[in-house]
Each structure stands twice: as structure tokens, then as C-alpha cells.
């Protein structure tokens, strides 16, 4: 399979938008959430991108020789699972460690469970923990970003193994060099887009019910341009593989 350079740029650009858009769904709480005074996971987007992105890429890479849809599903499942575990265990710490009720100050009623929120928000804080709506939103974000990373990985990998430098060695099923390079490239794509998205939302967001979610189009525009440029670098990597 020979991959056209435009496919690589396109796949990376679409993958980048999926990652950048996915980050807008993930409840990133930042430093305030780390001391349980805001809703979300108590860390920044780079850490969540590292966790979700790496797991998604490992699962996607494990499905390397499979068809595209399976690689995408594997990536999405890996990222969503990792983010789900992060949010679940984070919630255990918030509930049984800190002793607060998962609640959001951004909405009056949880859009999914219809539970009242304001009663449980400690005065002076923005909410605590990860309520149901944030959890669901986070899973959607993980799925989207996992799809994006796997898409970029798949096309770059098949682009690379078409060259003499990264070709699959005789007797092997995968090219280790191509898999490592494509994986590192996609991880880089994760970081670039998650940080651009993070700049867009000012570091923290709760999920699709957050008013900041309306900034999604601007973030997606920035992500698609930046990812297309990074995709161009991917083409250069493929071109240099023939030696």
C-alpha cells in the first residue's frame, strides 16, 4: 500500500482536530481541582494528553496490522479507558479521601442525572470531583482523541513502511522503526493539539455543559492549521525514509 502524501497531511489534520476537539470534552480541572476547589481531574491537559494519548497509541499500535476501523477503535478504546480510569480513581480520592460530593458550579442541575448541584457546592469553590455529566463528557473526549491519534498513526505508519529505510524486515510482521516513529509522531500531535486546546479554554473546562465549550470552533480552527503543518513534517519524514 502506497500512501499519497496528501493522505498523510489530511489524516494528521483530521486527527489533530479530533484530538483538539476531544480535549474540550475532558474535565480538566488544573491546580484548583488538585485541592478540590474546582470540578474536574486535578491536573493539566499535558498530563491527561500523556496518559490518554500514550495508552491510546499503545492499543492502536497493538492493532497495527489490522484494518483501519479496528486501529481507530483500538485507539479510541485505549484513550477512553485510560481517561475513564483516571476520572474514576480521581473520584474515589475526592469522595473518600477529601470527603466532598462530586458537583459542578457551572450548571444548576446535572444535564444527565437531573440531580441538583448547587446544594453540594461548598461556598467559595467552583465545585468538586467529577459528576456524571463530566464523566460522560470525558469518555466522549477520550474516544475522540483516541480516534485522532490512531488515524495519524495508521497513515504515517503505512507511509513509512513504503520506504526502503523503514520497510518491514524479512520474516517480521511489523517495522519497529516505522511503528516507533509513527507512535512518537502521533504522541507529539497529541501534545501540540491538547496544549493549543488548553490555551483556548484558559487551562480548565468541565465538559460539554461548560460555557467555555462555545469556544470549540476557534480551537478547532487553530488545531486544524497547526496539525496540517505538523502533517507536512510527517510527509518530510516519509520522503527521507528512502536511503
Amino acid at each position, binding site marked *: 500500500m502506497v500512501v499519497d502524501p496528501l493522505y498523510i497531511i489530511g489524516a494528521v489534520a483530521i486527527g489533530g482536530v479530533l484530538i483538539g476537539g476531544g480535549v474540550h470534552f475532558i474535565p480538566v480541572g488544573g491546580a484548583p481541582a488538585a485541592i478540590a476547589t474546582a470540578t474536574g481531574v486535578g491536573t493539566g491537559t499535558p498530563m491527561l*494528553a500523556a496518559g490518554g494519548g500514550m495508552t491510546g497509541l499503545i492499543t492502536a499500535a497493538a492493532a497495527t496490522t489490522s484494518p483501519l476501523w479496528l486501529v481507530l477503535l483500538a485507539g479510541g478504546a485505549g484513550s477512553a479507558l485510560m481517561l475513564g480510569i483516571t476520572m474514576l480513581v480521581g473520584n474515589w480520592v475526592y469522595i473518600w479521601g477529601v470527603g466532598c460530593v462530586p458537583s459542578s458550579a457551572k450548571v444548576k442541575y446535572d444535564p444527565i442525572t437531573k440531580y441538583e448541584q448547587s446544594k453540594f457546592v461548598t461556598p467559595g469553590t467552583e465545585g468538586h470531583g467529577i459528576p456524571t455529566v463530566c464523566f460522560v463528557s470525558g469518555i466522549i473526549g477520550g474516544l475522540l482523541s483516541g480516534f485522532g491519534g490512531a488515524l495519524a498513526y495508521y497513515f504515517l505508519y503505512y507511509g513509512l513502511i513504503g520506504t526502503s529505510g523503514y520497510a518491514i524486515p524479512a520474516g517480521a510482521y511489523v517495522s519497529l522503526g516505522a511503528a516507533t516513529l509513527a507512535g512518537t509522531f502521533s*504522541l507529539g500531535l497529541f501534545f501540540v493539539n491538547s496544549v493549543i486546546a488548553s*490555551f483556548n479554554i484558559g487551562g480548565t473546562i468541565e465538559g460539554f455543559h461548560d460555557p467555555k465549550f462555545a469556544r470549540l470552533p476557534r480551537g478547532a480552527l*487553530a488545531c486544524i492549521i*497547526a496539525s496540517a503543518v*505538523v502533517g507536512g513534517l510527517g510527509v518530510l519524514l516519509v520522503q*527521507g525514509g528512502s*536511503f
Partner: protein
Amino acid sequence: MANEKGWGPNSVDKRKTLAFGVVGGLAGIYLTPINPIIGPVLAALGAVCAIVWGADAISRVSSYGLGTGVPSIGYMSLAFSLVGALSGVSIAVYLGPHYTWLGPILGFVIAMLVGAIVAGLCLTVLRMKIPILMRCTIELAGAAALSVLGFSAAIAGSYALPNLLHSVIIPGYIALFFILNTMAIQHPFNACLGPNENRTRTLKLAFTTAFMVTGIVGLIAYPFTPAWWVIALVGGIGWYISVSAFIAASKEEAAEVKWTGWWPHDEEEFVQSVKEIKE
């Protein structure tokens, strides 16, 4: 104290760190082929220069408060610089065997170009209001590219793509550099930030983290270069010197350094220990 512009009376001259990083980094990478032992050590030292430059650049831009923490911009810059640096080396291969020497400089330039594009996007599309974001992202991208290329050349003993492929990409060290170099670049300011941040002290910590990475690079270079123990030794000695300088500087600038003892076992002991500390 670092003022709003990030270059207060206690900050260092940004032209000096820039020259240190660019000249040191490129010289180290280009001197790699001179000798199988000294060359890789010089490449690793070049990467140390680049990391110190990057740490200064990230300190300047993060003094503004990005809203996302210091590490975020470091991870972003390392991500596109790593890809940019590798694509620069790839173009050099594509151009032909006579142009291999162009690789590192091309990677350096491409990384900075992508840095400029991403910073431009942040300023225009996302409407971020940080005037020095453009300059600092470009500097960070350049420093990140040189640090990755420096450590890669130290392990591979050359900056040509086939060598890098064999000893850096296939073993997966490239992904390790991603995290290691980001840590080395972003940690100093992340640890030292605050109202009385002294840039000289921050850069001493930058040398510490950079030499720490050098030591690790020396150890993981064991299967690929005979110079591995020299790199690890240089890293270890450099780390000892710089961490001593950093601790001395921290003690000098602290109001007082006092050992508070272990945590008390019961309340009486606690009250007693508080009294002792107050005295």
C-alpha cells in the same frame, strides 16, 4: 525579581543565553564525527547548552502566566521540535549523500518555523495576549530541536538519519527524549517561579537537570557507543557541580535554613517542637 517583562534586574541577558544555546548546541552536534569518544561527549554537552537556553526562554514566557502551567508550552514545543528536527535530518537524506551535513541546521530551522506558525495561531486565532509568546516559542522550539539532536547524536555517534534510525528511533529512545528533554527544560522555572525568582539560580537548576539527563543518556547509550561511560561520567560530574551551586545559591537567598526535625508522635511533643523552633 522578575518583572512583568520577564527580564528584571535579576534575570540574565537573553542574548547571552541565546548565543550560548545556538553556538554551543550546533557546535556540539557538528563536532560529533571528529572522534568516537570525544565527539559524542561534545554532542551531549551541546544538548546541555540548548537545554539551558530553552529553560531561560520558558522562564521569560511563563513569567506572564499562561493559565495552563509552565509544562504545557514545554511539551508543545518539544512535540513539534522533535518532529521538525527529525524531518530536517530526513530532508538532508532525501537531498543526497553530499548534503547530510545540512540535517541538523535544517531541523533547527524547521522547528523554529513551526514554532512561529503555532505561536502565530495562538496570537491570532486564539487571541492570546502575550506579546513575547512569538519570540519565546521560536526560541523554545530551536532549543528543543538542538537538545533532541544533540542527545541523539551522542548515542548514535553521528547525525545522519540511518545511524539515528538504528540507535535512537528503533530502540524507542526518541520517545524517551521527548519526556526527558521536556522535563529538563520546563522543570527549572516550574520549581523556582515566584516573586523572588532569581534567573541565575533558575539557570543553575537548568544545568542540574540537563546534566542529569546527560547521565541517563550516557547509561542508555551503552549498547551503541564506546563513549557511553564518558558521557555518563561527564553528566555525573556536571550534575554534582551544578547541584552544589544551586543548593548554595538557594541557601544564600533564603532568609534562614533550619532543620525542623521529624514529625512529632503526639500532641505534647508537637507543642514542644513548635516552641523549640520559635526559640
